């Protein structure tokens, strides 16, 4: 074998070159590292930049105030473009750099990361994404939705309809227009169970993802003469659904969406035309809550904002802040239990799973995460678009949790059986 030393070195140098990546070194201070690889470019574009901006602004606020219990928050942001190799690389990178929490904000990515996160004991936040059955903490100890899942949202909407109809939905007709993906089909089991329980008639109309053309769906919806309409999608599908609903002359005050509806959607649809439409609010919107005011004064006001100022206080921005407050509260609780760390996944997990009655100074409904309930209590409220902003029409409430938990248990048991 004619292999001399020089060529060996040259060859191995060439091989090693791509691996010699810059690895950031931080000064020795107490830090908690969060990894936030999210989808900025592909499917979740409609939410990610605002959501992420909210998270970063809140972390800046916390760090500028001296951190939480002496710990500084470091957040690594990358784009995984809803592409699994990139997401898994980001996950492994985060893990190597000592991240104890990951927030991928993407259902497909979260699903692929579930086995890894459980194995590596890294807390994965699956707010408004991922598996709905992850609310069962006993099956998914390291997967934390920390937010109301789609089943609860559907339950809340039905409860609100029931209130509108003075307590009974018997004989009413509810139409469910949804994107034809696993995410869109998710609420169906709950809606079907509730249909039996409440006595309403449910008709479902799926549309092809991403839903940029729904012109053939809505005439059918109109012809079904529904009492209520629930539309379930994300991004462009939502705005198109609303536009088509308006074009078909459906009464907007009987139309409701999930949490995925924001002010910028309303701009696309037309602020006036969409008046009356309802959505589920998992946290307070707008700039009124104290946390948002603080961010405006201490972060954005000082020019440290992570994005355009006019996005502060939008629905998705506040979702980001909501998640960030919960993460930070988890760190605080963890530091309370074991002040000197070491900062590991299980350490933070203990903290996150002992959050009790946390409201982030009026931003969230009272949220309690336990070892069994990762959903946080299942409280939300319904808000109505009045042409300029979403105005809450109910107080924080929780509904149909028995049905929801039955479904959660059913699926998480299945996971326990086949998964591990």
């Amino acid at each position, binding site marked *: *074998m*004619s*292999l001399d030393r020089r*060529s*060996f070195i040259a*060859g*191995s140098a060439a*091989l090693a070159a*791509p*691996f010699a*990546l*810059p690895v*950031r070194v931080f000064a020795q201070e107490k830090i908690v590292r969060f990894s936030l690889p999210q989808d*900025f*470019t592909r499917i979740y574009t409609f939410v990610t*930049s605002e959501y*992420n*901006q909210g998270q970063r602004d809140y972390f800046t606020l916390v760090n500028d105030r001296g951190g939480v219990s002496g710990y500084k928050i470091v957040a*690594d*942001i*990358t*784009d995984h*473009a809803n*592409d*699994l*190799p*990139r997401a*898994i*690389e*980001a*996950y*492994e*990178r985060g*893990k*190597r750099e000592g991240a104890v929490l990951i927030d991928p904000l993407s259902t*497909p990515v979260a*699903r*692929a990361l*579930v*086995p*890894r996160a459980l194995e590596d004991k890294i807390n994965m936040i699956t707010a408004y994404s991922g*598996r*709905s*059955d992850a609310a069962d903490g006993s099956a998914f100890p390291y997967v934390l939705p920390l937010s109301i899942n789609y089943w609860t949202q559907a339950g809340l909407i039905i409860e609100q309809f029931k209130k509108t109809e003075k307590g009974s939905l018997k004989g009413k007709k509810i139409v469910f227009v949804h994107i*034809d*993906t*696993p995410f869109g*089909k*998710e609420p*169906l*089991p709950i809606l079907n169970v509730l249909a039996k329980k409440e006595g309403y008639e449910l008709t479902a109309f799926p549309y092809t993802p991403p839903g940029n053309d729904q012109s053939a769906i809505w005439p059918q919806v109109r012809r079904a003469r529904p009492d209520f309409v629930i539309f379930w999608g994300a991004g462009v599908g939502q705005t198109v659904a609303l536009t088509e609903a308006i074009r078909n002359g459906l009464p907007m005050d009987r139309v409701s969406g999930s949490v995925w509806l924001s002010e910028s959607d309303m701009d696309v649809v037309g602020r006036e035309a969409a008046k009356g439409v309802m959505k589920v609010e998992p946290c307070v919107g707008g700039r009124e809550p104290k946390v948002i005011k603080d961010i405006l004064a201490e972060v954005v006001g000082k020019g440290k904002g*992570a*994005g355009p100022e006019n996005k502060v206080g939008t629905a998705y921005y506040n979702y980001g802040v909501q998640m960030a407050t919960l993460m930070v509260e988890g760190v605080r609780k963890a530091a309370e239990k074991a002040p000197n760390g070491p900062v590991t996944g299980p350490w933070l997990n203990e903290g996150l799973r002992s959050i009790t009655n946390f409201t982030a100074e009026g931003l969230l409904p009272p949220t309690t995460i336990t070892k069994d309930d990762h959903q946080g209590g299942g409280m939300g409220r319904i808000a109505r678009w009045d042409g300029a902003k979403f105005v809450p029409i109910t107080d924080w409430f929780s509904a149909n949790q028995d049905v929801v938990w039955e479904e959660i248990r059913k*699926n998480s048991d*299945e*996971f326990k059986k*086949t*998964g*591990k």
Partner: protein
Amino acid sequence: MFYRRAGIRHTRYQDERQLFPLGFDRGLIIVVIAILLAAPFIFDRLYVSGYLLPWLIWTSAALGLNLLMGWSGQIHLGYGAVMGIGAYGSVHLVRLGVPLEIAMIAGGLLSATIGTMFGGAALRMKGIYLAMATLAMQYVVDFVISHSSVISGGSLATLQVPPVRFLGIPLQGDLPTYYLAFGVCFVITLFMLNVRRTSFGRALAALREKDYAAQILGISTFRYKLLAFWVSSFIGGVVGSVLAVTYLRAISPDQFHIELSIQILAMIIVGGLGSVLGPFFGTALILFAPILLNNLLGFTASTLGWSLPIDLRAHLPLMAYGALVIGFLLYEPLGLAKIYANFRNYLLVWPFRHAQR
């Protein structure tokens, strides 16, 4: 230099005909294989399961598609669907309790059967018509997978891969999964290196150059077109099941969409159509360029303090992906393999450039 030809005298025909007549090539390959084998022990886990593992899997897939596109000249825009069929087939079998070794082969056979139907279209048309037909099939397969809950796995549409064993070794953790992917990639590479020396490989080449000329020469285009689709789809199916078992661990329909097909296509184009080495380079570039760019941008933002608007920063990798494909097609249509060959040829005769044959 390096690739020394001096002093190599073949005394037997077998020596002349071996895959790598130059000693240095053989040495280089042995070194690379040794590094890859030792990788889990030398490199950090991040690089093994974040870079090397997907690299090996995607390369295997690209090699399978390259057999069809580079060797036999057919166009296939639905390779992702073929891989999906293999993945779903084998995962379902594994969930039913079939051993993984058999399930992988069965997944491959299932892919091959359905993939040959794609090939059926190739008997009637070629060029862009074939491209459109395979593209349409991709959509049809996607639709069938995601709309039959029996296949896609219930209301959550995720199919968890149960803990499996391969040849008695439980596939858990980094080591066994990595070595399984390595083994499959190794076998496929070996097959691809040798296929062009068989009558099958030469028939495919004849088909690629001109199909009716091949028919006149007595090569049954009907048979070999279908066979090319069969073999390529079989490889795709096996790779799909490897992908599911070692890397994804939970499969959902959106993982095998048109994006995957285009990605693998791009790997071949960037690597070099019809080359065995090409897919290795092409996969590395297509798979890792966005990641590296992303990390680089993150690095400059956090250390140098200059940062781009988030929308632009996030979309740069996508632009780079497109630009890579365009750039290679315009400036080096034969891909990275050709660049390597140029480099090798240069060194082969260095410093006597005029001695080049």
